[in-house]
């Protein structure tokens, strides 16, 4: 178990990166607490896997240093870093039994056989593979193979961190939930530092204490699920987290008020900005109140998603999503008001702190 420091890491897959766009990973400067459960969340191609492989040592970053507990490991090979990693698609050693698969990383490190056996038995129990422990890994289903891969990731007790690269992609939905809660349980029990890459927000939010949202090769926000929901620090986080995502409306700012078309909206505080920036107001659909007062909207569609309804409306030429309870009704002459607690202001996509 270790604290992991990423010191100004940049990575480009080409030899001589000259422009900012050449970097798959633009600049990551951050520390991961010892024993934390982190999720790396972002769309495909945002640099999640690159960052993960840099931590595990499969990739050496073009620039910057990586430290485990203050020790520079940038130049070390994966096996020297004492890291476990589980990949997106199951990797099993076909010709070995399930138990031998789990024992493999231990035996490679010269652990005494008695200890190997007890560790393997423990992990088999954890991931519920005791029944097939002595079967060859060949010919098992993808589910089971991925469980073996997970097991190999968990079998070493002394690893600095366990990294998961979208490990549940090939798993059936009902198993996904089960395995994820098992991982969470293991994390609580053993306190490994865990980093979990995913593009599925539910997965990220249920697994992690801290979610790291990446976009375009950069970390745009690190926070608890609640922070990401209430205070997205980049409009991308607003879109990406939550379903439907945050409404982002272009506004003109004037002190503690925002001007949306001909409507003036009260902000929770005053924003002080330089000129020439693109300013927007972000509000989650949950904080938009539909009634007969406030700003008029026109309703385009209503989606019933069970316990809630999503109202798709237009305001001043912009789309606006509103979340309603299933029994709430839509008035004939619809107006909306914004709950000031749910309002965030963005300048050039980044959140602006509002003064008192």
């Amino acid at each position, binding site marked *: 178990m270790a604290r992991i420091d990423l010191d100004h890491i940049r990575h480009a897959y080409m030899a001589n990166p000259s422009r900012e766009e050449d970097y798959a990973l633009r600049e990551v400067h951050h520390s991961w607490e010892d024993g934390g459960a982190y999720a790396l969340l972002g769309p495909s191609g945002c640099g999640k896997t690159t960052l993960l492989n840099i931590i*595990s*040592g*499969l990739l050496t970053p073009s620039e910057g240093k990586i430290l485990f507990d203050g020790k520079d490991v940038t130049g070390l090979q994966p096996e020297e870093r004492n890291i476990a990693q589980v990949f997106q698609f199951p*990797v099993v*050693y076909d010709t070995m039994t399930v138990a031998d698969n789990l024992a*493999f*990383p231990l035996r*490679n490190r010269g652990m005494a056989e008695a200890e190997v056996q007890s560790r393997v038995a423990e992990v088999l129990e954890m991931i519920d593979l005791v029944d097939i422990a002595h079967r060859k890994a060949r010919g098992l289903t993808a589910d089971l193979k991925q469980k073996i891969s997970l097991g190999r990731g968990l079998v070493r007790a002394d690893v600095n961190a366990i990294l998961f690269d979208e490990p549940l992609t090939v798993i059936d939905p009902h198993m996904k939930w089960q395995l994820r809660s098992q991982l969470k349980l293991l994390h609580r029990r053993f306190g490994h530092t865990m980093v979990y890459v995913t593009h599925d927000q539910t997965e990220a939010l249920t697994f992690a204490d801290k979610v790291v949202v990446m976009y375009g090769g950069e970390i745009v926000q690190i926070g608890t699920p609640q922070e990401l929901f209430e205070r997205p620090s980049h409009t991308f986080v607003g879109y990406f987290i939550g379903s439907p995502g945050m409404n982002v409306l272009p506004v003109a700012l004037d002190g503690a008020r925002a001007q949306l078309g001909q409507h003036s909206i009260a902000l929770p505080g005053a924003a002080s900005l330089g000129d020439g920036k693109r300013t927007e107001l972000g509000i989650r659909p949950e904080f938009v109140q539909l009634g007969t007062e406030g700003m008029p909207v026109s309703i385009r569609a209503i989606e019933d998603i069970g316990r809630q309804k999503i109202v798709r409306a237009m305001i001043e030429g912009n789309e606006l999503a509103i979340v309603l309870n299933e029994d709430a009704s839509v008035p004939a002459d619809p107006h909306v008001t914004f709950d000031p607690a749910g309002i965030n202001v963005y300048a050039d996509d980044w959140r602006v702190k509002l003064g008192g």
Partner: protein
Amino acid sequence: MDKSWNNKAWFLVLPVLLLVAFSAVIPLMTVVNYSVQDTFGNNQFFWAGTDWFSDVLSSARFHDALLRNLAFSAIILLIEVPLGIFIALNMPRKGLGVPFCLVFMSLPLLIPWNVVGTIWQVFGRVDIGLLGYTLNSIGIDYNYVSDPFDAWVTVIIMDVWHWTSLVVLLCYAGLVSIPDAYYQAAKIDGASRWSVFRFIQLPKMNRVLLIAVLLRFMDSFMIYTEPFVVTGGGPGNATTFLSIDLVKTAIGQFDVGPAAAMSLIYFLIILLLSWVFYTVMITNDAKG
């Protein structure tokens, strides 16, 4: 459910059936026919029963040739399979080296058998051949025409030169189909180079290796052209393999009866051994 039966589709298979009949079945049947009869020419045949078969099976000449074949195939497989795997493991996986290596490896396979034989026949000659002349001038007594050992070495090196590429290409195809994640996982697991080979690469090559072994076994067991061109089966009978012996019997001595019996036995041996190889490797495969 009622189905209307229409057997006209069988006519579509007819051309193939005819082709196979004329190219394989009928010639094979004439061989079977010859093998149970004796002739003194003039197209007169007498029933000989299984005489030729028992003659061939009990002849020392046949036993010797069969042993030579088995020894040759065993040596060929023992050299070409490990060497092929070794070369395939060391070939580049990406970059400009790939097409270069593939073309380079394919070259020997493109050369006709008799040309390969001729190349080595000339190459190894003591008077004008680069290899034979050089070896002798540095004091190594090499002469494939008079020394049985030298003749064997020449034929084996020639076969290795000609056919190792096939094993290489098949193994390479197996190797490139292994996803990167396997190597990455092995690194994370701290696997040694040998473990990576033993537990990742070899299992993934299993299928293609089966094909390679079968092809190389059958081909080497049937070898004819190259030793015929280089040594003509000699010196003495040192490189007289079954196929060469067969041709000598059939065309040289015109003993069609024994030759027919011999070719059938030869065919059955190849079939049997191939089946054994296949079964053993498939069973191993299933056991993992």
